[in-house]
């Protein structure tokens, strides 16, 4: 057996600097400048301050993509293509309208011997505002993007980066950066996503990145072919059912009766529907009529009430004799004019004279009988009472009509549904319609048979295509397995050491090939944990992080200081494991790799362990307190962190002096 070549290496980027501008989320600081020195860089802050956004912005700057957490991974190429639009939605809530044009991410990174310096506008898809590639000693400019358009700069970027790294396509870089070398808030676990893991394995252990691409395409094509084949199969099955129905009634004799029976029932349902429709229509008309009558009677009652009110007021006024007015009465009884104060018996005589002559005692006008007689009031009273009765009747009729219309419409809808169900069940028979000798049925049967045959043939073709692709894929997988086997003895110890420092128990990993592809299986104390729930959540997360660290270490050339991004899982770590997680991180960092990760008060034990191990020479802690205006809750959380922070600072100082 020929010796397989040694796996190639990937020079994944080492991040040097990042600048975020116009990120309104960081309300207190319009420009965020972060320099990543070697080792661990920790971004610490209370919940909701934007730690995850920082990592997402970093990755966005690198790749032009923000992963859509709801998008399923199908293939590397498809994932890139369909995720391009998500960045806008992600940043919309985090960047104000006024800052949209200003918002940009500027990154300095190192790949191999080159330093890339570039700026990407947050809302500018597949564009770069600037791009320069220099040698790492700063002596020469390898590429100056200034003359190019933003899009062309981006295109060049997508060519240069994978080439420097050792990948075939930019999409592969995006995949590795977003899925493998970033553990983010999506909590997408490599171990338990077979498609993602297989692609990662191809890229990390495969000899040729093109193989990874090919495997990715083949897998996707096989899936699509299989799906199409199943569709054709299902369609054929449906047609078969209808064919059986037709065949069952196409035989002469008794089947004609069955057909007649079906037709008869159909006719009955149709008639019922028509009758119900007619009834509903009538009921609706009755309701409209009742509505109108009610409106009319109500208006009439209102009119009569107003008329009554006027008549009543006039009646009261008119019924009063001037002599009954209090001023006149008082004047008469006191013999003193209530207006001018004159007194004497002459007053009484004067007033009485006027009153008796139907003259107003005040102004002397003739008092015209302008009253409304009681009869008019009585008449209005009677009319109003009657009209109120009519209104009550109209109301009752309206209520009844509404209820009846509702019932009729309901009944109509029921008949519609029944007819619809019947027609769908017997569609084939009803389509055929009546004919004297059943020839139409036969023609339909023949047609169905032909269709079924075509569908089955198509199905077969798709399955064949699927099998062919799978065969190709399996070949590639076999290569991968062979390559992995070679790499295993170097890779597995790396992983085991990292994982052991976290779990404290013996963890093993092995590649397995099954019907669904190639995957890694982890065993704890020699017992395989194939199902995700067979490890606790904390264990899962950190074993996964350990895998990523191991992959990065394995694929990186010596002296490479590639960066792993980790959005530390908050709240899911058991206290017992926090310190161990810190130890695991420390081991990774002290082996010369860079770790950019987030933390909050819940992971202070992790930070303490990391700080103690790393010291200031290999770790920096950056508190986000000055980045944003804190809410009351956030301020409280930050205050809680103060003590822990002091301890970590002390541990950092102490860690620096420890012998390594």
């Amino acid at each position, binding site marked *: 057996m020929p010796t397989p070549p040694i796996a190639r290496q990937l020079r994944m980027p080492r991040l040097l600097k990042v600048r975020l501008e116009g990120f309104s989320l960081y309300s207190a600081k319009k420009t965020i400048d972060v320099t990543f020195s070697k080792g661990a860089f920790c971004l610490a802050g209370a919940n909701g301050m934007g730690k995850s956004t920082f990592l997402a912005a970093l990755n966005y700057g690198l790749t032009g993509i923000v992963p859509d957490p709801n998008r399923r991974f199908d293939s590397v190429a498809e994932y890139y293509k369909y995720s391009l639009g998500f960045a806008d939605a992600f940043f919309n809530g985090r960047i104000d309208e006024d800052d949209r044009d200003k918002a940009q991410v500027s990154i300095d990174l190192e790949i191999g011997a080159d330093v890339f310096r570039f700026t990407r506008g947050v809302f500018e898809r597949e564009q770069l505002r600037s791009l320069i590639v220099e040698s790492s000693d700063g002596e020469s400019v390898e590429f100056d993007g200034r003359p190019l358009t933003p899009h062309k700069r981006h295109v060049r970027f997508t060519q240069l980066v994978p080439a420097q790294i050792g990948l075939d396509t930019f999409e592969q870089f995006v995949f590795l950066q977003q899925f493998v070398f970033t553990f983010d808030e999506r909590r997408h676990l490599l171990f338990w996503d077979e498609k993602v893991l297989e692609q990662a394995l191809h890229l990390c252990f495969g000899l040729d990145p093109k193989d990874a691409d090919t495997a990715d395409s083949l897998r996707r094509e096989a899936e699509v072919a299989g799906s199409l084949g199943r569709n054709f199969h299902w369609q054929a099955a449906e047609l078969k059912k209808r064919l059986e129905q037709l065949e069952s009634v196409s035989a002469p004799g008794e089947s004609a009766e069955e057909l007649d029976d079906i037709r008869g029932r159909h006719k009955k349902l149709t008639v019922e529907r028509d009758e119900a429709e007619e009834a509903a229509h009538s009921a609706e008309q009755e309701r409209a009529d009742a509505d109108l009558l009610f409106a009319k009677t109500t208006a009439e009652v209102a009119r009569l009430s107003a008329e009554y009110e006027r008549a009543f007021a006039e009646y009261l006024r008119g019924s*009063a004799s001037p002599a009954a007015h209090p001023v006149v009465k008082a004047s008469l009884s006191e013999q003193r004019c209530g207006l001018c104060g004159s007194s004497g018996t002459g007053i009484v005589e004067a007033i009485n004279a006027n009153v008796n002559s139907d003259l107003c005692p005040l102004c002397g006008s003739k008092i015209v009988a302008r009253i409304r007689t009681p009869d008019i009031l009585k008449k209005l009273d009677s009319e109003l009472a009657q009209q109120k009765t009519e209104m009550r009747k109209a109301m009752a009729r309206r209520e009844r009509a509404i209820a009846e219309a509702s019932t009729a419409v309901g009944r109509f809808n029921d008949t519609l549904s029944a007819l619809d169900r019947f027609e769908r069940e017997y569609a084939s028979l009803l389509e055929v319609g009546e004919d004297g000798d059943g020839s139409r049925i036969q023609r339909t049967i023949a047609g169905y048979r032909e269709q079924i045959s075509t569908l089955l043939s198509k199905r077969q073709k798709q399955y064949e295509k699927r099998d062919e692709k799978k065969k190709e894929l399996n070949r590639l997988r076999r290569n991968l397995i062979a390559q992995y086997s070679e790499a295993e003895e170097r890779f597995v110890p790396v992983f085991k050491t990292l994982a052991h420092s976290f779990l404290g128990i013996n963890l093993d990993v092995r590649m397995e090939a099954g019907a669904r592809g190639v995957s890694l299986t982890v065993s704890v104390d020699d017992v395989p944990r194939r199902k995700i729930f067979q490890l606790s959540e904390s264990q899962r997360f950190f074993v996964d992080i350990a895998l990523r660290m191991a992959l990065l270490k394995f694929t990186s050339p010596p002296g490479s200081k590639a960066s792993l991004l980790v959005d530390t899982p908050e709240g899911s770590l058991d206290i017992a494991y926090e310190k161990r997680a810190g130890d695991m991180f420390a081991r990774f960092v002290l082996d010369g790799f860079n770790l950019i990760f987030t933390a909050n008060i819940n992971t202070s034990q992790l930070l303490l362990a990391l700080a103690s191990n790393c010291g200031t020479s290999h770790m920096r802690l950056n508190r986000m307190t000055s980045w944003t205006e804190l809410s009351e809750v956030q301020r409280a959380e930050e205050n809680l962190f103060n003590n822990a922070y002091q301890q970590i600072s002390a541990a950092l100082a102490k860690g620096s002096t420890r012998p390594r």
Partner: protein
Amino acid sequence: MPNMLSSFDFLFLTEKLSGKFGTATFGEIHLFSYLGCLLSLFGGQPVADWGYGFAGLDTGAPFSAELQGAYQELESAGFVANSGGKVVITEQGKYQLEFLSTLRLFDPRKIYLAAGCESLLCFPVGMVRNAMSMEPGLRPVLKVGGARPLLETTALEQLHEHFDALYGVLGQPHDLLAPSTVWLSYLLELSRKYDQDLALRAQA
């Protein structure tokens, strides 16, 4: 602005109360009109049908601007007269009332107004007044102070609670005497208790 309903009520109540006491006071007319309105609610009539509204004065008594306006009109017409600050019905007023009582428009309210006045068969007027100060609309006026509109949603809900309870204990009465006396007795107990509590607090 008075309306025909408030005018009728004023005349009706003046006649009823004058028959009992010789005269009617303004406060009593407002009180028994309000009681009549509440009894109409008990009888299932919508509150809007009463035709005019009431406010609670900070003395714990009800008042209606329409009723008071009706007095002006009726006095000008000579149907009622002021007698030492109280109201009496004139002969002309009696005649008019007799006629108006034949009109069907006023049939429903006569029942409730009369039923309200009939409470005076069982209680002295002072007790009716004390009891009514504990009615859900007036009670907060007395306890908290400050005039406020009556027959608002909250008070109506509480009133309906009272009335539902009355129906619960009495069933469907054919007459208003029993429910009105039960209710006023209940409210009177509350009033007594309120006075006792006030007195105890003052002593303490």
